């Protein structure tokens, strides 16, 4: 406890870095996964291709991705952009299916009514399908958030500053307290993400709570 208090500044700085490395890709990944998911939901053939590809992406080990990206992108190995991109890839991999499922979960008669009222494909997506898919997408986003927070900690192995540092450093120095601080900090960060997503989802979906008055 004293160790944690003594190093509070360092812990907070690394936590902020960790939040940035895990959080920004969550946003970027969502922005990319929504159009991909939309395409997948519209086109059965495209769906198979997209979901298989994105599914495969998730199976690439994170360390490999962190190391493979710099030569591919021409970035420096210590550049945190590699982590951002890698985490975005994972987020897209997790979210594309969720978005596609969410969009196609809209009730048939609701969709039919929207078409019959003269909504074009894009307008319908924006005004009907997407808002209705929010609860499903939020659930997927929560999984992706936890997954990102945990994967980002691996980046300490390639020397990028975040909470994972306490795990590797504590292990190297055989100092369990430091490892525990790292674990708890990661956990708290994941909880914060989870909370933010849940609150956002609640705000966006007032109708889900309006049941049989």
């Amino acid at each position, binding site marked *: 406890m004293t160790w944690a208090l003594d190093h509070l500044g360092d812990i907070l700085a690394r936590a902020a870095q960790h939040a940035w490395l895990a959080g920004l890709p969550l946003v970027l990944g969502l922005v990319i996964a929504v159009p991909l998911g939309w395409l997948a939901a519209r086109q059965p053939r495209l769906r198979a291709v997209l979901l298989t590809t994105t599914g495969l992406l998730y199976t690439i080990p994170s360390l490999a991705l962190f190391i493979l990206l710099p030569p591919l992108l021409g970035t420096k190995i210590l550049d945190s952009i590699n982590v951002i991109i890698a985490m975005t890839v994972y987020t897209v991999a997790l979210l594309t299916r969720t978005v596609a499922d969410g969009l196609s979960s809209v009730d048939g008669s609701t969709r*039919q009514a929207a078409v019959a*009222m003269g909504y074009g494909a894009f307008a319908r997506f924006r005004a009907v399908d997407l808002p209705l898919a929010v609860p499903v997408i939020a659930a997927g986003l929560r999984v992706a958030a936890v997954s990102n927070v945990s994967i980002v900690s691996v980046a300490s192995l390639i020397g990028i500053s975040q909470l994972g540092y306490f795990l590797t450093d504590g292990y190297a120095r055989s100092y369990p307290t430091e490892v525990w601080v790292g674990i708890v900090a990661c956990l708290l960060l994941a909880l914060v993400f989870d909370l933010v997503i849940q609150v956002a989802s609640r705000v966006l979906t007032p109708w889900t709570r309006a049941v049989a008055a």
Partner: protein
Amino acid sequence: MIRFEGVTKRYADASGADDGAGSLAVDDLTLEAPTGKITVLVGPSGCGKTTTLRMVNRMITPTSGTISIDGKDTASLDVAELRRGIGYVIQHAGLFPHRTVLDNVTTVPRLLGTDKRTARARAMELIERVGLDPAMARRYPAQLSGGQQQRVGVARALAADPPVMLMDEPFSAVDPVVREQLQNEFLRLQSELGKTILFVTHDIDEAVKLGDQVAVLRVGGVLAQLDSPAKLLADPVDDFVAGFVGRDRGYRALSFAAAPELSLTDEPTVRLGARADDVRAVGTPWVLCVDDDREPLGWVRAAAVETEVTRTLLHRGGTVASVSGSLRALLDAALSSPSGRGVVAGDDGRLVGTIRAAEVIPAIEARRDSTTEEATAR
């Protein structure tokens, strides 16, 4: 007027091969749905009713043939514009779960660019018009019963005041009592609005009740008969239609025959609380009880009255026919009455008199003679 001309829809086989061997859902349909009238498409499941309906707003493209609205070929119109000019109501309403009732109803006007305030004001009017409490406007669809959702569906379809309405089994998913209410209010609404309506149902009773004209389709999408409900019941063109319109069609056809002026018998009456002696003094085994406004309450068996007439003693089985009702209602009142005397009330609900089945029959016979003459004259 909606006009189908030689409209055929052939769905591709499951294989997707368009070799002309796909299943015919609608076969060379030629039909006119006149302006301001309800045209009902009725037929067994899978006979192509939904397909027919959806070809009008181009949710389905016909394989061949043309569909025009007021002389304009729908294929030549902008599809979004076409759809916004056509109200569409479906079985499970298809309301947007994420929008309040009010916002559901304003959908099409908002798509058409009406400003929010105007659209909402008109929506509130419609919500009341379809028989919903204005307080419901702020609810979400999940907070409404099936019948209420269906009313919102109707209000939403009417919001942009489209001249044409397509309705696909809109009342099929609600219980019979609510269905009857919705049907009656739909007829009342239509009498005020006069839309050109194409209405799909698999229920022949609903078809003859609502339709100004009824088109019976057989499986394979072939039009079997297009006629007024009365004509359909009286004169089915073939065994299929005869079987489809059902068994007691002779009796049901009487629904469309307005009751002629019949001489009714004055009926002695008693009030609630009448003493046993007074009831027996009437001299008939069954005595009609009325309230202070002379509205019929029910029959009471004189022998059953010990001290006075109470509500629990009233026989509730008899129906009351209206003087302006149909022969069917008149006959039913007579047949359902324990005394054999059918109770007839005026439009104000007050008792006018009674009539026996034997007195209704001649009116039915007289009507048959006149319609046969009419048919032969044609």
